[in-house]
């Protein structure tokens, strides 16, 4: 009895372990997934630093892709001598990934491409989540004619080939002013991708909500006087949040690829480097045996895709209650 009373006196509200905390703890035990997480983190940090560099004019030379660092098409990993424009004395130089036609460092362009890709993928993800999640939740919860309309809408949208749709949006959106907002370059790219890619998440959330809306805790929530909106957004959505997170991490890769494809097709950002633009440039360069620009872009895409995929799968294993093994 004394034990009981003392614990009562000393006890403070202790945070219980949520399903979330549990999942993240499991995730931390997976070494390889954590390595992948750090690779992804490096890309994000680079993108963030590039933004800060531009905002505060830190003038970090790594991010200064405009500057010529060597002669045109200098091979990578070799020492060279060159005379910069407006100078008489030749300088010694070395680059990791060679230079392009203008003598700009391929490596710096590759690093800068992370900013473009991450920005596009992040913004496109948020746009598609913002459209897909509420629509899916509402369709799944209310069913009836609301569901019919939403399902009809997204099935129609998904019958159009994806690339064609993104291209159409990109072409329509660029160089336009909508609601006083000038849409150009990168904005058009992520708007086009975001507005066309919410169908998958919408379908997924709709299914999850249909599955859960008959559960007893939803009935219990209605029995304590919750409104439908409250049940959908406060009671049901947190229960499918792991689905959103997992989908987000896996979808991210496809958005990076979509950006690459759009840039490759000439619909991306024109005046700043991106991986897609680098591959586009490499089309003509490959004929002259200039392989490094292609290689640099490919390596950058390869690592973030691989890391995100592995991390996303690990996330799914840890957060999805049905796939739990331990």
């Amino acid at each position, binding site marked *: 009895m004394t034990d*009981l009373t003392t*614990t*009562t006196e000393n*006890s*403070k*509200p*202790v*945070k*219980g*372990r*949520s*399903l*979330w905390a549990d999942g993240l703890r499991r995730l931390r035990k997976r070494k390889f997934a954590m390595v992948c997480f750090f690779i992804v983190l490096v890309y994000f940090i680079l993108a963030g630093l590039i933004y800060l560099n531009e905002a505060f004019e830190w003038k970090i030379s790594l991010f200064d892709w405009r500057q010529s660092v060597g002669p045109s098409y200098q091979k990578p990993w070799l020492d060279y001598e060159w005379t910069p424009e407006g100078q008489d004395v030749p300088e010694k130089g070395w680059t990791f990934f060679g230079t392009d036609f203008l003598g700009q460092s391929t490596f710096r362009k590759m690093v800068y491409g992370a900013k473009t890709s991450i920005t596009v993928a992040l913004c496109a993800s948020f746009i598609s989540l913002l459209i897909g999640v509420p629509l899916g939740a509402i369709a799944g919860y209310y069913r*009836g004619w609301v569901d019919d309309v939403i399902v009809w809408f997204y099935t129609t949208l998904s019958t159009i080939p994806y690339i064609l749709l993104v291209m159409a949006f990109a072409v329509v959106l660029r160089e336009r002013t909508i609601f006083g907002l000038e849409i150009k370059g990168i904005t058009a790219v992520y708007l086009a991708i975001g507005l066309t890619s919410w169908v998958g998440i919408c379908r997924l959330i709709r299914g999850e909500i249909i599955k859960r809306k008959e*559960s*007893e*805790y939803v*009935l*219990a*929530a*209605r*029995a*304590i*006087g*919750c*409104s439908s909106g409250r049940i959908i957004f406060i*009671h049901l959505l*947190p*229960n499918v*949040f792991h689905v959103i997170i997992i989908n987000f991490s896996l979808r991210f890769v496809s958005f990076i690829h979509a950006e690459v494809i759009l840039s490759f097709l000439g619909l991306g950002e024109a005046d700043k480097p991106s991986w897609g633009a680098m591959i586009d440039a490499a089309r003509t360069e490959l004929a002259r045996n200039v392989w490094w620009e292609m290689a640099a872009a490919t390596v950058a895409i390869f690592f973030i895709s691989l890391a995100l995929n592995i991390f996303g799968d690990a996330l799914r294993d840890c957060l999805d209650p049905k796939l739990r093994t331990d």
Partner: protein
Amino acid sequence: MTQTNDNLLSIKNLSTHFYTEQGLVKAVQDVSFDIPKGKTLAVVGESGCGKSVTALSVMRLIPWPPGKIVDGEILFDGESLREVSEDRMRQIRGNDIAMIFQEPMTSLNPVFTVGNQIIEVVKLHQKKSGHEALGIAVDMMRKVGIADPERRVGEYPHQMSGGMRQRVMIAMALCCGPELLIADEPTTALDVTIQAQILELLRTLQRQEGMSIMMITHDLGVVAENADEVVVMYASRVVEKASAEELFDKPLHPYTRGLLKSLPKLGERKERLDVIGGSVPNPLHFPDGCKFHPRCPLGCNDSRCRSQEPPLKQVAAGRSVACWHAEGYDDKSE
């Protein structure tokens, strides 16, 4: 029971139907009963006889489609629940009428702490700050017998046992001081010792708060322990109404008699318990006449049993039954 005005809830001729793909399911037909203030009414019957649908009809939680209340009146404290707006109904749910469910394992939301779930009810119905609501939650948890509530308020449902979760459900239901508690098989999913504790808890809380309870159960033991009044339902109709004592003393309907006979008795050695022959009729194809007649032990020589459904009639003070052969059932006056 005398006809006075101290009924908290009175249900008159309630009918709820489900329009399914297989056809019309008359889940509740012509059900009438009253719950007096401060008393416990038990609704007894087999699975699928319409007990839960009756309760959900009172809460207006019948999912449409496919279900719909098609007829009848539900008066709660003088207010007709079939006519009030959905907004008013939301205020009533949780505040004036609360409900607890059969499965404590699944009726709590797994992603929120139990404290947050109690706080939500308080905040939905009362203007309280977060801190005050937390205080109420802790008090309520102590009241329902959860040890060390300051600590457990931060726990998630999966960290608690079934009995604890049912206590949390009761705390959630009672934190706004409802006048009527609907308990839909509150002890079915719990083991026997916990059942006794939960029933005892409900009795104590009822004494303290003076609320009425509508207890839905198929367990006659629960009825004997907690109920003042009993409504026996069979195949979506009320077949017998009586006070608990009278019902156990002298059941009038052959179905009630069968139910009581199927209980094990102390001091009696038997290989098998008595059963009611046959099975519950399919709600899509109820038999004509008295719905119990194919299983009725009285034999049903009477063609009236097969063709005419006996209406529920008062046979004595506070006693009603629906059987042509019941004692005192006057078949001449309609």
